[in-house]
């Protein structure tokens, strides 16, 4: 089975600015994929290229096996739903009219049942007949999500969908998107809320200066080059002539009397360190490990990636 999204050696420039540089990756069907990167990294240009809003200079993009820029473009666009980053809307119409027209553009005649389901899933039922102008920013954002879903696309791309959305609505939105993912829809998400990506995405790609600098499963990414920190409290040493632990263990720092932070290069080495502590004659009273978050990993990868001048 072809992946939901195949990006092969894609480059795109705007004048002298190289927005995307030779990016290649694929997203298997059913995956919840996160695309992260700082502002200006090229994420939106790449998404616009996938959606056909932007034409690439070189390379190819396929959605469900259909090339987005060849004769297959109509099949590709039927297979993709995009939630744009900007809060855009047509001020002449109500929420329901907006969704009915959007269904019509995809050639769907009767779509009321699915539209009602989307409105309900996104808590918009009571705003169905409200004019778009009268909605709050968060509600307009949810209508954008609804518009991307009216034609039940197998691939859904969300470009920072929770920007400006309050916590309750964000949770509601994610549970709805998670449900769609559970039903088999492939999701590609860009977000600046890294905790969202960490909890939702099974795999993450990171872009910087138009390049894909990392692509890895979220679990492996969180363990990659991870320096685990152990916070341990020891009971008074049995042998009085023992030196303080930080002298015996080069990676240990004494936080207060009997409490130490010990850096371990790799989580698999934690047991070795604990054994050493015991062998040194210390009895461990309490033990905590402090894990790195995706944010720490993201920042370290961004820092390690080279800057580009143009």
């Amino acid at each position, binding site marked *: 089975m072809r992946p939901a999204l195949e990006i092969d050696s894609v480059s795109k420039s705007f004048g002298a600015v190289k927005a995307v540089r030779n990016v290649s990756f694929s997203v298997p069907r059913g995956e919840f994929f996160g695309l992260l990167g700082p502002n200006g990294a090229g994420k939106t240009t790449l998404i616009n290229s996938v959606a*056909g809003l932007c034409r690439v200079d070189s390379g190819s993009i396929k959605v469900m096996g259909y090339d987005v820029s060849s004769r297959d473009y109509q099949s590709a666009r039927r297979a993709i739903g995009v939630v*744009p980053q900007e809060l855009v809307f047509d001020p002449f119409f109500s929420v329901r009219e907006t969704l009915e027209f959007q269904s*019509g553009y995809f050639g769907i005649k009767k779509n009321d049942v699915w539209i009602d389901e989307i409105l309900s899933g996104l808590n918009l039922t009571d705003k169905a007949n409200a004019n778009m102008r009268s909605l709050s920013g968060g509600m307009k954002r949810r209508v954008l999500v609804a518009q991307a879903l009216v034609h039940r696309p197998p691939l859904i791309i969300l470009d920072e969908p929770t920007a400006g959305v309050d916590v309750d609505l964000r949770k509601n939105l994610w549970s709805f998107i998670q449900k769609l993912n559970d039903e088999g829809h492939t999701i590609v998400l860009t977000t600046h809320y890294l905790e969202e990506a960490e909890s939702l995405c099974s795999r993450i790609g990171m872009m910087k200066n138009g390049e894909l600098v990392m692509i890895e499963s979220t679990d492996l990414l969180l363990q990659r080059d991870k320096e685990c920190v152990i916070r341990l409290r020891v009971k008074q040493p049995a042998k009085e002539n023992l030196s303080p632990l930080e002298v015996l263990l080069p990676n240990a720092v004494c936080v207060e009397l009997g409490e130490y932070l010990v850096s371990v290069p790799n989580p698999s080495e934690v047991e070795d360190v604990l054994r050493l502590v015991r062998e040194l004659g210390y009895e461990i009273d309490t033990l905590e490990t402090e894990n790195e978050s995706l944010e720490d990993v993201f920042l370290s990868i961004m820092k390690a990636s080279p800057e580009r001048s143009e």
Partner: protein
Amino acid sequence: MSGFSALFLKEVLRFWKVAVQTVGAPVLTALLYLLIFSHALKNRISVYPDLEIDYLTFLVPGLAMMSLLQNSFANTSSSVAQSKMMGSIVFILLTPLSHHALFAAYISAACLRGLLVGSGVIIAAMLFVSVPISNIFYILFFGTCGGVILGSLGLIAGIWADKFDQVAAFQNFVILPMTFLSGVFYSVESLPPLWQMISHANPFFYLIDGFRAGFFGRSDVPIEISICVVSLVTLVLSLGCLLLIRSGYKLRG
């Protein structure tokens, strides 16, 4: 609902929801032109003396066509420019709508608005003056082609413009002079030879002359010439517009 019919319906509703502004106001403006120009010029301008048509009657088809042209242009130019500048055009560009369907939907809606306004002007004018109808085919042909030509120009202007000022400039410096100098308020036969020649270079002249022939059975140039010129301009502009949309110029980065 096909993609075409959805976009057509949306474009029609877009102007129909504000019909007072988009249909009613242009009809009123045309009636004011009719009132003022006929009062000021009725004893100064002689038109088709052999047909015994008074100036007020002569003005009606020209004003109807002028309103039709201006409103067809306004419909596509404002819709495309507004959705482009507000960003909502992505909802159309993300869909599988072909460039043919997109062109046809925008132009059909522009034609409909133009024809509604043009019909409105004629119906309202008939309350004050009796306007004969000589050939309904000519009226419909030139009215529809006028809508397509100006709808296409509006689409081109909307796609090209980055600011509303540019749409207004296109309207004020291209469309308005061409419509005013096409024989709306006078018969080109009454002009000196040089101005007659210049008028004949203006495609809008053939639209108005042919449209007027549908009412009075009389035209400044043979109707066959007007049909050929208007058909050619319609074809060229439609093809140009289709190619522009297909190229993605200022629509797809």
